[in-house]
């Protein structure tokens, strides 16, 4: 299986994701520069964390226009699995692959800590039976406050699109939402960093089952 880790100017968790998928999970993982225009040959796509384009204008607002994003849209449209972590989540919201938006934390400060997430029963991959009732995953963001209008939220809930909720909300996100998927289930986005919880010395190893759950999508939909 080949995993593409997209690299935008200002990405800074790109090599961490590369290490998690490549070094730890032992997959064929490669960095793909944002000026590339094809994702041919890849089975899964990861938009890593960071500050693409310095978060200027709005987080993810400029990166969504990178040439590679046309390929990401096409890849997702064909059912290919796409995961956005932190800034990657923000880009996926900006480009319209995921609903809602992420704004400044309500504490008006950056937050870096390990947060406890309640796992939701969303679909056959992301559920409490597979991942457990709660997992501990690091967060590191200044703009992780998830926002969506009431109708949108009702739709998310009705379709069970919420994957994770914060046990203690660090940023003011509506419904304590930490991660979601699209309706089809092949595009997921989350503010917490599963790639920071994959080795013994890290705050937890709960990121591994999350990454594996994401990769399971490849067998069903590609």
């Amino acid at each position: 299986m080949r995993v593409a880790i997209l690299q935008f100017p200002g990405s800074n968790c790109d090599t961490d994701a590369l290490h998690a998928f490549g070094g730890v999970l032992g997959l064929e993982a490669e960095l793909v520069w944002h000026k590339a225009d094809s994702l041919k040959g890849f089975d899964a796509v990861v938009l890593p964390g960071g500050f693409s384009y310095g978060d200027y204008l709005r987080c993810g607002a400029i990166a969504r226009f990178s040439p590679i994003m046309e390929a990401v849209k096409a890849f997702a449209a064909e059912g290919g699995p796409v995961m956005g972590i932190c800034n990657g989540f923000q880009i996926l919201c900006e480009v319209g692959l995921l609903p809602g938006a992420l704004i400044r934390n309500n504490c008006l400060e950056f937050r870096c800590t390990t947060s406890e997430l309640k796992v939701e029963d969303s679909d056959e991959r992301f559920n409490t039976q597979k991942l457990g009732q709660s997992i501990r995953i690091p967060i590191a963001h200044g703009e992780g406050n998830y926002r969506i209008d009431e109708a949108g939220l009702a739709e998310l809930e009705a379709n069970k699109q919420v994957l994770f909720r914060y046990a203690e909300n660090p940023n003011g996100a509506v419904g304590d939402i930490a991660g979601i998927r699209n309706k089809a289930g092949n595009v997921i986005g989350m503010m917490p960093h599963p790639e920071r919880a994959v080795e013994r010395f890290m705050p937890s190893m709960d990121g591994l089952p999350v990454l594996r759950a994401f990769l399971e999508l490849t067998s069903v939909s590609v």
Partner: protein
Amino acid sequence: MASTVTPSNPDPLLNVAITPELVEKHGLTQDEYKLILDILGREPNLTELGIFSVMWSEHCSYKNSRPLLKTFPTQKADPNAPGQVLVKAGEENAGVIDIGDGWAICFKIESHNHPSAVEPFEGAATGVGGIIRDIFTMGARPVLLTNSLRFGDLSSAQSQRIFRGVVHGISHYGNCIGIPNVGGDVYFDECYEGNPLVNALCLGILRHDQIKRGAATGIGNPVYYVGPPTGRDGLGGASFASRELSEESAADRPAVQKGDPFMEKLLIEACLEMMAQEGLVVGIQDMGAAGLTCSTCETAARGGSGIEIELDEVPQRETGMNSYEIMLSESQERMLVIAQKGREKELEAIFEKWDLHAVQVGEVKPGEDMVVTQHGSPVVHLPAAKLADDAPVYLRESKEPEHFAKCRAWSPDSLPAADAGTLQAALVKLLGHPTIASKRWITQQYDHMVMTGTVIEPGSDAAVVRLRLEGAEKLIAIANDCNNRYCWLDPYAGGKIAIAECLRNLACSGARPLGMTNNLNFGNPNKPESYYMLKEAIRGLAEACQFFDIPVVGGNVSLYNENVDKKIDPTPVVSIAGIIDDPAHVTTQYAKTAGNTLVLLGGAPDELGGSYYLKVMHDLKTGAAPEIDLEKEKALADFLRAQIAAGTVKAAHDLSEGGLLCAVAEMCFTPGKTFGAKLNLAGLGEGATLVAALYGESTARALIEVPATEAESVLAAAKAAGVPAQDIGEITAASELAVALGGETLSWSTTELRSTWETSIEKVMAR
């Protein structure tokens, strides 16, 4: 030989005759100006005067500190010992030390005190940006940041504003650029009111064959300007940093630069990609203090060659900038690169990929002059090496400060007897003092986990980072320390204690030291008492580094830290990087298991001088600084490492501010669980008063948690190693700290203590 005719500038303002007023305005003395006339054999124009003023500022030339700094050891005593210095202090932007398997670390600390006083957010942010550039300029990938920060008393509105701004600035820059900010130290003391210290450290990793030099060699090689355009920001920042702060400093705001961490992130990636191409880069230097001036004349001086640049080629953000403004601008995130002739396209393609400017602005020339042209005619023509290396050097007059005698004569007998109530209240007050309290309000604003190598998060004795390298994994530990109160009482002892505490922090974490970098923050050297402090602190640092065989790989001197009517305490900030040889040796300060024994190493001498107990309970800064015995420190550090290697130590924590009980409490505050402890301190430290035993800050001490079954053998091993050791009690599951003192027992709820300790800063800073 420099031109004998003063070069003329297109801007007539720059061709005015140099008056004594202009010389003084540039921070130069009339004697220094005479020296300039001697070197040139003619009058300088105003741009040239500006160039001399920044190059001969303390920040760039170390003119007041150089003779003192020469006493630092710059390499290992034994040329065959591990951890050899590959690039020495002063040779390049930062020093480099071998860590084995063909890999090396490169690290340095640098201050941005004055800009942070005037504009805390940008001042601190650009401090971080500047030190990162120093590291990747050497060819190293930056892998961690730490900071040593000093603020005034947190009850003051001004200190809160500066504190908030500085932390936000550091957080903004470090988080965006994606380098983990893993620790450091923070003190709050009224002596820093209005004159905060912001000392930023960066450590990078590189292979031996990747080391780059900042030298312009190879006549005809192109000189490139890389990074964003030059503006009028930060004009004369280096000379600004070398003056005392005054009421008018707020009007200096244009001398504070504005940082763009996104730009620097691109610059890092592009430069590392460029430096990975063999032979492409001949020399490279960042444009930090004194910008284009410093980078051109220093690279030429190091390369023993001349350099010529044309200002019309320099990317400019504003129109109508004259040569003075372009040469002295401190616009951020810029680099000077000397490339191999014939490979220009290769270099330009890399910067094109990262959407960055890479413009050829000149070339390496024969001779040894720095020539700057504008519209094709010379506007500056100076001897580069003389400019870079021949700044005057001063040995100033020094005089022991008057408060010394009075403080030494102070006796704890003058204090009212401490009853049980006082002893009880003291621990709560100490743990709630912002210097001792949890720094969570700060560290949760820093991304300390990016790069997924952080093994010990901020808060324990030392930060530890795991580095994934080709063919090797390395564990690097780092600690920053300096207690200003000891240094104010006795700078010689204070300097030694700073080194010793750093080493204790490293030893408690399982690390052996590699090398030291320092940031000397002092007052105006022209004042004999301030110079005395500087001289004595350096004597202490140098002696301790010699003793422990720790090479000094560089650092920074920040003088003139004086604000309107007072000066800061002498603050020689020390940071020592170390290495942990085996992942099993990584140790934290946090208690692990109820029932384990607490062993106090180093005893309890009868000392209270300079302690936080005196500060928080009696508002006193007096007494003698704690005694410092380097032999004892060495024995303790060796013992700690040996016991950690033997696997007996479950937690280790050094004793520092707040003394024994604060250290015990901090051990109980394990992340995710609050332990208690049951201690029997009756008869502790024969002859010591109770207050000194509980809250004194004697050196060469640490606490270790060992399994009860191994306590006896650990005590025996300590005896054999000549380290005083006592079983003082046990870790308990119940969250109570109970201390039996012979007759009576003191007791605290560790849950309540933790709440005081954890929320003390947050309560003040809550919006």
